[in-house]
């Protein structure tokens, strides 16, 4: 990533009334923490009205993606009304084809269906981030040095693995392992393809590195599962 560019902004509606609002919030957090840390920032939508004014520059300083729970498009409308035009507008209910029955508003009631919904939506957000970065030539900065960002995208810690004798750190690998374990992936040699397929969504792996990564990931997954 080159210095001097801007990070992509993601603004979630976080609508409190409906499960889709909770999914928009959780999916946005997942992109900030796990899928695209370092290249994304967020801001609390209500700050556009309640803040000191600096927050209103957000959408002019960052190419911004809004994530709305429903077709009322509050995040999109609020951002365009108070900050600036958005680069992409995603709607949770559309991504999930309206199938949010069984999803919950509160974390106390969260089920596997909620987790899957968050995964689906977060991956759509990540694709939108990638499209914006591709258009801008991938020019993003590591420094969040403008006043509009609120330091919400602190990356989660990475896990170090040994790939062909070299140390490689993969952001959020522990969370990836936890999710795969919850989905029933066995901690043995048969897990290699699934581990590789999942990790490469978040971490670049060249074709010639696949075998080495597969072996390293199986070993690390076994250790993580204490097998």
């Amino acid at each position: 990533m080159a210095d001097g560019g801007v990070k992509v902004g993601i603004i979630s509606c976080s609508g409190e009334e409906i499960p889709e609002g909770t999914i928009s919030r959780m999916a946005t957090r997942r992109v900030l923490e796990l899928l695209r840390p370092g290249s994304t920032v967020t801001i609390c939508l209500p700050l556009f009205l309640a803040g000191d004014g600096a927050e209103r520059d957000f959408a002019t300083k960052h190419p911004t993606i809004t994530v709305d729970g429903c077709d009322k498009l509050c995040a999109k409308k609020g951002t365009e009304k108070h900050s600036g035009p958005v680069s992409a507008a995603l709607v949770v209910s559309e991504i999930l084809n309206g199938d949010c029955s069984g999803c919950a508003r509160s974390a106390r009631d969260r089920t596997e269906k909620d987790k899957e919904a968050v995964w689906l939506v977060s991956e759509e957000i990540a694709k939108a981030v990638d499209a914006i970065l591709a258009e801008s030539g991938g020019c993003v900065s590591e420094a969040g040095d403008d006043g509009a960002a609120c330091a919400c995208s602190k990356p989660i810690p990475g896990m170090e693995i040994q790939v062909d004798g070299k140390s490689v750190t993969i952001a959020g690998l522990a969370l990836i392992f936890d999710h795969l374990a919850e989905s029933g992936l066995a901690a043995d040699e048969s897990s290699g393809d699934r581990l590789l397929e999942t990790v490469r969504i978040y971490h670049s792996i060249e074709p010639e590195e696949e075998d080495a990564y597969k072996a390293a990931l199986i070993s690390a997954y076994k250790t993580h599962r204490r097998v």
Partner: protein
Amino acid sequence: MPCSGIGKVHGLIAREATYLVTDELAPQEAETVCLALLVSGDEEARAKVREAECIAIDGCPKLCAAKNVEMAGGKVVKSIRVVDAFKDHRGAEPGTPTKLADDGWTIVREIAGDIADSMCGRCESEVNYDG
């Protein structure tokens, strides 16, 4: 009305405290409205908060929930700051903006209980709360 805060654990605590009140402690007496609806200028949402007595739960001192309710013409009868609840929990490890830890849930229950108690006083309704 929680603040919709997404950057800190305080926002998640505000959100979960709201759900504890609206879903369990006082489902007949309380409901929530998407704060984003107010930000987008939705007339139906603005009318709703004008007709109700509002309790704002804000994660940080910027008080987004309370300010947005007041800007919409609503009456904030009680303004709660999650950061204030932490004063009684020095050294607490509440979790992250994504997931609450045990200390975070403890603070959620305290805030929700406070709200339920104050609602009891205001409407003389019986609210079941064993927290």
